[in-house]
């Protein structure tokens, strides 16, 4: 009886391992020469999570903001996909004035991004003018 139980345990564990290996097929492997955090990384950002499931797999790993060549701020957000499958999502940047008001802009539109399993992507936005000092990023999963 014990032998049968341990055999079924080994079979289950083997099946689980096989499933994990198969799920890992097609995942992205990444090599980077950068080991230190970026100079323009923001230490404190305010995050509000409403879709917990989406946040488990798809989450931001770094948020940077710096002046672009032309003057307005550029925001860069690294998004990593820890899921076993490709993830698609929609996102929208809104820029804020120093007083914290949203600056209405034709540049604030919903855009899409797709990240393969294990991979990461940088989504970016340029402020509509030089006076914009903060941004807000909304994300919404598509699959």
């Amino acid at each position, binding site marked *: 009886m014990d032998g049968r139980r341990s055999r079924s345990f080994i079979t289950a564990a083997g099946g689980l391992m096989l499933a994990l290996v198969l799920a890992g097929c097609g995942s992205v492997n990444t090599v980077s020469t950068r080991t230190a955090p970026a100079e323009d990384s923001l230490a404190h950002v305010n995050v509000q999570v409403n879709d917990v499931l989406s946040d488990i797999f798809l989450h931001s790993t770094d948020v940077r903001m710096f002046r672009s060549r032309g003057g307005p701020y550029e925001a860069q957000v690294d998004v990593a996909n820890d899921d076993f499958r490709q993830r698609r999502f929609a996102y929208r940047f809104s820029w804020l004035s120093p007083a914290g008001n949203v600056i209405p802009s034709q540049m604030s539109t919903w855009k899409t991004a797709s990240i393969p399993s294990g991979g990461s992507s940088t989504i970016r936005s340029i402020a509509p003018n030089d006076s914009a000092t903060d941004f807000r990023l909304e994300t919404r999963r*598509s699959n």
Partner: protein
Amino acid sequence: MQLTPLCSGTLIALALMLGACGQKAKYIETGGTESVVSVGEVDIQDIQMAASGMLESMLETGILKRAPHEPARLVLDRIVNDTSSRFDVGELLYRMREQLVNSGQAEVVTTWGANAESQEAQGIARREAFLNGKTEQESAQPDFTLTGKITQLKRSAGNVRQTTYTFRLTLTNVNTGREAWTKTVDMTKQGTKSGVGF
């Protein structure tokens, strides 16, 4: 098997109820995530994304700040829609104009050329220039002209269709005749049929 009048009535009522369950028309956010996504057509969200990408690139490079005039003066030249999707290129251009002109970063010269956008304003400008002893275009000398092209690449595998729409815009410095800024924005859509939401 014969249907009793009661049974027939129930079936008809059920069919009417199911028929009434179709989706009613509603307002959605323009270009929002509930929009229709078509594989073989340019959708409103494609135009919005293209306009946004173009504007971001223009502001990032600071090309408009390097113009002799402030705000920079633009003349809209030919933008060719070379796709099988029928839409007005003004959908793209007016969104860009709104952002640049209303924020004071650029001015569009609407009195320039043989096919001026505002014929009335061109006539008044010509009269004013004549009275002031200037040439007719001297007072509205542009800094840049904007030209562009929208193209498509269609491919399919089995019943899966894929279309890439490429939006290209170029600013030419009218004083040097050289390209001052250019940007390409690609939009690729794949699927077997149109769907709602992205």
